[in-house]
Structures are given as structure tokens and as C-alpha cells.
């Protein structure tokens, strides 16, 4: 061995020793234990130095250790599902024998949700009582979202009306919003013995929240309830839909566009268009009803939704137009030849909004809605024409400070211009009003732990018409009592202006007020939900007047009041019986009010004491069919019997109705649908009309108010044509 070789050898040795020692020096051992708050170890947590490859998985005892070649200050990350990710910045030499307790992740499904007052539909919500498709698969709903909601507790059955009557409130005490923007005329016009329907197609919505009280400060001008409908953000695919029904036809088309060159302004868009024509003439010719139709119900409606992704946000524009006309003569006890009624209604609604996520966890929303509704009514020989122009503008922002604290603020403006002309043989009268309401709200959400959450908000409104400020506090909190159960409490003040029937004659009034107190218990596990809710609602400043209907020159004032209290129970189960999904709702309601021309406080005719709904759906695989069943029971409603002393002194007999439906999948693309309402022919009575004058014996004759038809049949054929014939009608089941 010569010198050179030796030297080289030594040098190499020296270098390798040096290198080794350096490596040994640089290797730091990181160790510790990961536990839950209750002290039990977490197995399988991921522990690592952020941005480096060094890390380990905790063992069954929660212990971990690994070596890292990083040095200096580093970030240690510990993550595990359903826990908040733990982050620690320190010098690696300090990361020894760490004792880390992971905090519960309050975003996880285990976290308590504020459930008092509100029902959610849609798979985004943690506990959904109704699914969006229930609207079209519930036998009694006939494809109407309002009909589906009437199977939930808290609503009362007012069969001839069809609108939502919530917890002793009138129908106009419920406000409907599409994508957070108010819908001013949500219901189709109808005669007084035929229930109305929601104007808008259920297929446009993928989320429905129905709140029967105690709702967020974001919503105002609703004394009893709000219904929030959210349109679909992005359609799944391009398709054409054809509907052929016993009452009319429908056609729909959806197109998606991918921009050739993606820009911030256009990151993809889509458009859906639907058109429906309904004409009841052939049906009424086959199955005549109690009305004498000169011009059977005919309506044309079209709607379109355009969506465009832009600047990390989404722009949605929705527009709907419909025109309805009919003329008929209805039985009337005071008019032997009957009462002739003619209607022509046209309604246009549009809604545009933009939502975007900004930096620093800010989210913004800007939107506006506009409605123009025109009615031409013929009442015997008199004519009534009115036009409503209404708009809603809204701006809101939400900041997420952390997973546990969120703040929302918003401002909004409602404007209505209402004009009416009444033309009788002898005179013409013109009247109307302009109503502007400005509102602002602030609301904060606090999630203290997976067990306790609080939402607190305030809302301030100013009415230019009344020159009145109102201030509404809202508060709700939820506490988890067990793995699958929780309780919630809610309190709130709510203001709403009297409706246009009153405002058109007198605007020297104030807003009407309710206060809600709600206690809710909820249990949910394994596709079963039990929900029980007790509430008390106090009414103040209800409008009183002296004639049976609001009239010009009457003495209007805010001297009315009332209360509603009750218990709502809901049970849904799609687990216990194979292929069966069912739910049961029960509502108990005790309510009285002093308003309108009531001589004393009394239970109004639209509020009955007991309501029960039972809905079932059974899937028969061999038949490719879903059979649906629904039963509704409502105890009697009050009316005034003129032949005995008193006011609202009697009750009608109980209401019963069964509906059946059958959806049959012919193929992936085609579905055949049958439904029948009241197949057993229950003879329901909604109330009585008394003669204006007594007969020779001093007796007031009366006529029972019956539905236009006791039964209703429907057959429809629905066909979806998608690009490659692969979309399927399961979607519509």
C-alpha cells in the first residue's frame, strides 16, 4: 500500500465518519402520544413535519415516534378524521415526549345543529327530513313542493286553499324565497274551491328548507314561516325532457357549455328551459266537477335558468312567466243563477344573483328579484284589474373567523307598487299604494364544542309607508344530549306588514308582530328521525276592521291580538322495513285570535286542532315500480252557525283523504305515472255558506262548501332523452 492509497483511504474514512456523524447529528427523534379529550388514545393519526416526508402513524396506544433530518423550527401536523388538525411550530429538538390532545372537529357530522323550527330537505343538510325527490314521489303532493310540505307537522289542512298555513297563521304569514330572494306571488291563481299550487317546477330545486318558526335574522316580513328554495348550481348533463299528461304537455331542455378558452369571466355555463301547457277542458269533459265552466282552466308557463361560473363564483339568472285564464259559474246560496267569475292572470318573475368566495374566508352574495303580476277579474258584472310590481334587492357577506365563529351581515330593500281599478256599472275607482321597506341584519354563529352551538342575530327594518322602525332579536341554541339526540331552543320577534288587501285601502297602520318560543327535541340514527317540537307564538297588532272584507273607508286599526301554541311530532323511518320508506306527522294546535271583524277572540276557520299525515313508499323491484300511499286526517274546522247564538260556534266534520300513486319504469328513459286522490270517495266539507236573509221560519239556509271534485285522476308519461341515452328516469322517481 503506497502512501497515496493510504491517504485516500484515510481521507475516505474520515469523510464517511464525518458524514455519518453529521447524519446522526441531524437526525432528531420526534415522539409523543395523541389522545382525545377524555384521555383515550387515538389510533391511526397521521403525524408529520409539514412539507417534509418524515412522519408516522400513531399506534393503538396513541404513541408515535419517528426521526427527521429536518432541523430548526418546523411545523408539526397531527391529523385524524373527525378531529381538528393540530399544528405546532417549534424547534424539532423540542418535539419530544409530546402530549397532544386533539380537539373535536366541529365541522364533522357529529356536531350539534340548530334544529328548532326548521326542516331541511336535501343531502347537504346533516339531518334532512324530506329529500328533494319526495316532492314528486309523495302521493298527495302531485308534483307540487307546497303539497309535499303539507305532509310535515306544523301545517294545517285547508284543503280548498292549497297554500301553507303554519301554526295557526294565515297563508300570507309564510314567505317563499328562491336562492334567498323573495317570491312575491308564489301561487298559481285558482277558484275558491280548488287548491292552488306552487308556480315553480320542483325539478329546478335541490335544496328546500322549511322553517315553521324561530328562523334566522336574514329573513323578515314573515310572521309565521319561511320556505327557502335553492336552485341547482350545475346540471349533471345535457338532456331533453318530454312530459305527456292527462292535463297537458311539458317540454324541457338543458344545455351545457364549456368555453373554448377558459377565462376568469367564463369558467363554464349552462342553460335549462322548460315550458308547460295545461288545459283542463278534456279532463272536465270526461269527469265534470261541481263548477260550471265556461272556459276551463288553461295555463301556459315557461321558465329558464342560466348559470355561469365566473371569478371563483357563480352567477345564476332565473326567469319564469305564466299566463292563466278561466271562467266559471259557481253555486251560491244567495244567487240562484250562481256566481260568475272570470280570471286572466299573467305573472313574470326574475331573479339574478351572484355568490363568490373571497380571500380570508369571506363569502359574498348579491342578488335581486323582480315580479310583475297582472290580474283581470270579472266578478258577475263588475271588473277588477290590478297590477303589482315588486322588487327585492339583497347584499350579504359572511366571514368565517374559524370553524367555530362565523359572522353574517346583510342589507336588503323591498319595494312594491300596487295599483287597482274597480269598475262597476255605476262607478270606477282607482287606488293603490307604494311600499318600501329597508332592512339590515347581523348574525353570529358560535360553535362552542361538538355539543353546544349558539346563533344570535338582530334585524332592523324601516317602513317608509308607516314611517316605522322595528327591531327583531333572534336567538337559538342547541345542545347535544346523547350520541344521536339533541335539544334546541329558539326565540325571536317577527314583524310583517298587513297584506295588499288592506294596504290598498288604508296605509295608516303599523306592522303586525309575533314572538316565537320553540323547544325542540331530535333523535336521528340509522335512517330514522324522531322530532318533537313544542311552541308558543304570541300575536300583536293584528289589523281589525268592521266589515266582513276589507273595504274602502273602513275603520282599520292595529288593535288585534292572538296566540298559537302546540306540539308537532315527526317520525320518519326507511330502515325497519325492507324497501319501505314512511313518515308520520302529527300536529296539535291550540290557537285563537282577535282580528278582522271578529267580535271576540276565536279559533279561525283555517286552524284546526289535530292534523295527521301518514306517507308511505314501497319499492317493488320485480315490477320496477314504486307504489306510494298517503293519508291525511284533519279534525273539524270552525264556522259560524247563524241559527245558533255566537261567533265561530261550530265545527265541520273531520277531514279524511287518501292518495295513491304508482310510478312504473318502462326503461331507463321512460316512466309511466298514475295517481288518484281520494279513491275511497270521502265526502269532505270545508265549511258552510249561509244565506244573507232568514227564510219564513226565521231559519238561515246553508250550503256546504265542497271541493270542486271529490276525486282526481292523473296519468303522465315522462321521457328523458340524454346525449347518449344513459340518463335515467330513476332520477325522477
Amino acid at each position, binding site marked *: 500500500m503506497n502512501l497515496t492509497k493510504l491517504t485516500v483511504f484515510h481521507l475516505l474514512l474520515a469523510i464517511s465518519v464525518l458524514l455519518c456523524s453529521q447524519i446522526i447529528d441531524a437526525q432528531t427523534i420526534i415522539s409523543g402520544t395523541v389522545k382525545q379529550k377524555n384521555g383515550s388514545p387515538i389510533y391511526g393519526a397521521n403525524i408529520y413535519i409539514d412539507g417534509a416526508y418524515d412522519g408516522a*402513524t400513531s399506534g393503538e396506544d396513541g404513541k408515535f415516534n419517528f426521526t427527521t433530518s429536518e432541523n430548526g423550527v418546523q411545523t408539526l401536523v397531527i391529523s385524524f*378524521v373527525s378531529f381538528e388538525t393540530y399544528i405546532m411550530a417549534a424547534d424539532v429538538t423540542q418535539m419530544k415526549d409530546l402530549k397532544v390532545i386533539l380537539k373535536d372537529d366541529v365541522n364533522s*357530522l357529529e356536531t350539534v345543529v340548530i334544529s328548532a323550527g326548521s326542516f331541511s330537505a336535501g343531502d347537504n343538510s346533516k339531518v334532512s327530513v324530506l329529500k328533494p325527490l319526495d316532492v314528486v314521489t309523495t302521493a298527495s303532493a302531485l308534483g307540487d313542493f307546497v303539497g309535499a310540505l303539507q305532509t310535515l307537522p306544523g301545517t294545517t289542512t285547508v284543503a280548498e286553499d292549497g297554500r301553507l298555513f303554519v301554526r295557526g297563521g294565515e297563508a300570507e304569514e309564510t314567505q317563499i324565497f328562491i336562492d334567498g330572494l323573495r317570491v312575491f306571488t308564489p301561487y298559481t291563481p285558482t277558484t275558491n274551491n280548488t287548491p292552488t299550487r306552487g308556480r315553480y317546477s320542483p325539478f329546478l330545486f335541490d335544496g328546500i328548507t322549511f322553517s315553521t318558526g324561530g328562523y334566522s335574522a336574514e329573513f323578515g316580513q314573515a310572521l309565521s314561516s319561511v320556505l327557502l328554495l335553492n336552485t341547482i348550481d350545475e346540471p349533471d348533463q345535457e338532456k331533453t325532457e318530454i312530459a305527456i299528461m292527462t292535463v297537458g304537455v311539458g317540454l324541457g331542455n338543458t344545455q351545457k357549455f364549456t368555453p373554448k378558452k377558459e377565462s376568469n369571466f367564463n369558467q363554464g355555463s349552462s342553460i335549462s328551459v322548460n315550458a308547460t301547457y295545461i288545459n283542463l277542458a278534456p279532463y272536465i269533459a270526461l269527469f265534470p266537477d261541481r263548477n260550471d265552466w265556461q272556459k276551463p282552466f288553461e295555463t301556459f308557463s315557461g321558465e329558464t335558468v342560466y348559470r355561469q361560473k365566473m371569478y371563483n363564483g357563480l352567477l345564476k339568472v332565473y326567469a319564469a312567466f305564466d299566463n292563466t285564464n278561466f271562467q266559471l259559474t259557481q253555486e251560491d246560496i244567495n244567487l240562484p243563477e250562481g256566481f260568475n267569475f272570470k280570471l286572466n292572470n299573467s305573472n313574470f318573475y326574475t331573479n339574478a344573483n351572484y355568490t363568490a368566495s373571497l380571500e380570508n374566508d369571506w363569502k359574498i352574495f348579491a342578488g335581486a328579484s323582480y315580479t310583475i303580476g297582472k290580474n283581470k277579474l270579472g266578478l258577475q258584472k263588475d271588473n277588477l284589474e290590478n297590477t303589482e310590481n315588486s322588487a327585492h334587492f339583497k347584499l350579504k357577506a359572511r366571514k368565517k373567523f374559524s370553524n367555530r365563529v362565523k359572522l353574517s351581515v346583510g342589507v336588503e330593500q323591498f319595494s312594491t307598487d300596487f295599483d287597482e281599478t274597480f269598475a262597476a256599472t255605476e262607478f270606477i275607482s282607482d287606488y293603490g299604494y307604494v311600499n318600501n321597506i329597508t332592512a339590515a341584519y347581523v348574525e353570529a354563529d358560535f360553535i362552542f364544542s361538538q355539543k353546544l352551538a349558539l346563533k344570535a342575530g338582530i334585524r332592523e327594518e324601516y317602513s317608509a309607508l308607516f314611517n316605522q322602525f322595528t327591531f327583531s332579536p333572534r336567538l337559538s341554541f342547541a345542545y347535544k344530549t346523547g350520541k344521536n339526540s339533541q335539544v334546541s331552543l329558539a326565540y325571536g320577534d317577527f314583524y310583517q306588514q298587513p297584506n295588499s288587501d288592506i294596504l290598498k285601502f288604508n296605509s295608516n297602520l303599523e306592522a303586525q308582530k309575533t314572538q316565537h318560543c320553540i323547544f325542540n327535541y331530535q333523535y336521528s340514527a340509522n335512517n330514522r328521525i324522531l322530532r318533537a317540537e313544542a311552541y308558543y307564538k304570541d300575536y300583536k297588532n293584528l289589523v281589525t276592521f268592521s266589515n266582513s272584507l276589507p273595504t274602502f273607508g273602513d275603520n282599520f286599526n292595529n288593535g288585534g291580538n292572538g296566540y298559537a301554541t302546540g306540539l308537532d311530532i315527526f317520525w320518519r323511518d326507511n330502515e325497519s322495513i325492507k*324497501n319501505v320508506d314512511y313518515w308520520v306527522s302529527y300536529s296539535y294546535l291550540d290557537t285563537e285570535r282577535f282580528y278582522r271583524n271578529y267580535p271576540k277572540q276565536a279559533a279561525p276557520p283555517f286552524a284546526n286542532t289535530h292534523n295527521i299525515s301518514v306517507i308511505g313508499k314501497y319499492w317493488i323491484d320485480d315490477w320496477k315500480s314504486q307504489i306510494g300511499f298517503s293519508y291525511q286526517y284533519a279534525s273539524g274546522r270552525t264556522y259560524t252557525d247563524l241559527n245558533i247564538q255566537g261567533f265561530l260556534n261550530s265545527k265541520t266534520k273531520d277531514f279524511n283523504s287518501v292518495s295513491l300513486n304508482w310510478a312504473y319504469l318502462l*326503461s331507463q328513459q321512460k316512466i309511466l305515472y298514475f295517481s288518484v286522490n281520494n279513491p275511497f270517495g270521502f265526502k269532505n266539507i270545508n265549511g258552510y255558506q249561509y244565506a244573507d236573509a232568514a227564510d219564513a221560519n226565521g231559519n238561515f239556509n246553508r250550503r256546504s262548501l265542497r271541493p270542486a271534485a271529490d276525486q282526481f285522476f292523473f296519468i303522465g308519461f315522462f321521457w328523458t332523452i340524454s346525449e347518449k341515452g344513459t340518463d*335515467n328516469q330513476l332520477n325522477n322517481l
Partner: protein
Amino acid sequence: MKNVFIYIIIAFVGSIVNAQETNISEDKAELSKYQQGMKKAFSLWEEGKSNEAANIFERISAAEPENWLPPFYVSQINIFASFSEKDQTQVKLQLDKALQFLNEAKTRSKENAEILVLEAQYYTAWIVQDGMQYGMKYSPKVVALYQKASIIASDNPHVLLGKIEWEMGSAKYFGKPTDVYCSELKRAVALFDTFKPEGEFYPTGGKEYAEKVVFENCKTE
């Protein structure tokens, strides 16, 4: 309605072994940290230690903020794990985690057929869990995702296999003949032979599973 989707259930679990043919030459002693990490994760996954494998992919995902593969595999492991999980709460947690990393992969690589297939598998997992609740809602999404993927990569065997299996499931359910799908299924098997992953650690597995599907559905010939 669960039965509707029984047919549509894709029995991935057998096919998951993402047999990563280690196309890295072993003699090349100097594997990068990334390569070492990925190899380790795949070998743990093959040993059945999928949780630990997912943890490693998660770490690599944090260290390689541009690379879509690590979050892709975190998501895939969680999706596959949910198929065999009985506890519903656990399933939801797994799928939420899968979605989080799926979204991460999507932001790192746009218009990626493999990620589209994974997203279709994500929705399929919900359908398998609760066909009655999610089948109606998610099946059009699945169809649309496979369609989009097949436009981007018509010769990717993962895309073709997933798409054909899904369509065959629906056809079976409606009592329609499924033999029309056999030629496409066989084409998928053949594609596995010629399929060249675009890069190291890209998804490659699934041929054996494809052969099994062909064997079960196309007995003749």
C-alpha cells in the same frame, strides 16, 4: 330501492391493488424522497395497511403541493375502504375525507380522466351505501363523469371499464341484454396491455379485475 343499485355496485375492492409495477430501476440507488415515499406507501397498501398508506400519501401531498397523485391516492384509499365499512358514521367520515382530497387533486390537475373516474367512484360509493337516498340523485352525475372522462381519454382502460360496467349494471337491471357490452369490455382488457401510464406512479392496476368481469359476463366464445 337498494336493489336497483346492487347491480351497479362496482366490486372495486378486489381490483384495488394498484399493482404498482415498480418501473423504477432498482439499481438506480438514488431514489428521490418522493419515490421512496410513494414506494413505501404502495407496499403498505399491498400489505393491507391502507390507513398507514393513506397517511404517507397525505404527508407526500403536503410536501408536494403541485403533484395530483398523492391526494388522488388518499382519496382512492378512503373511497375503497368505505365499500367494506359497515359503520355508517365511519363511512361518512371516510367519504368526507375522500372528497377533501379529491377536490385537492382536482385543483392540482384539471381535466384529468383518472380523477374523473375517481369522482365517479366517489359518487358510486354513496350509492352503494344508500341506494334509496343517493341512487336517484347521484347516478346521473356518475354517468356524466364517465362520459366526460371518455371524451378526454377514450383509450384509458380505467375510463372504459368504469363506464361499461356502470352501463351494464343499468342494462341488467332493466332486463336488457348485456352481451352488447362484451366487445367493449374485451377492448378494455386489451387496452390494459397497451396502456402506458403517463408517468411514474400513475394508476396502472385493474386488468385482473377487468378479466374477471369479462369472465362473469361474457361466458361464451
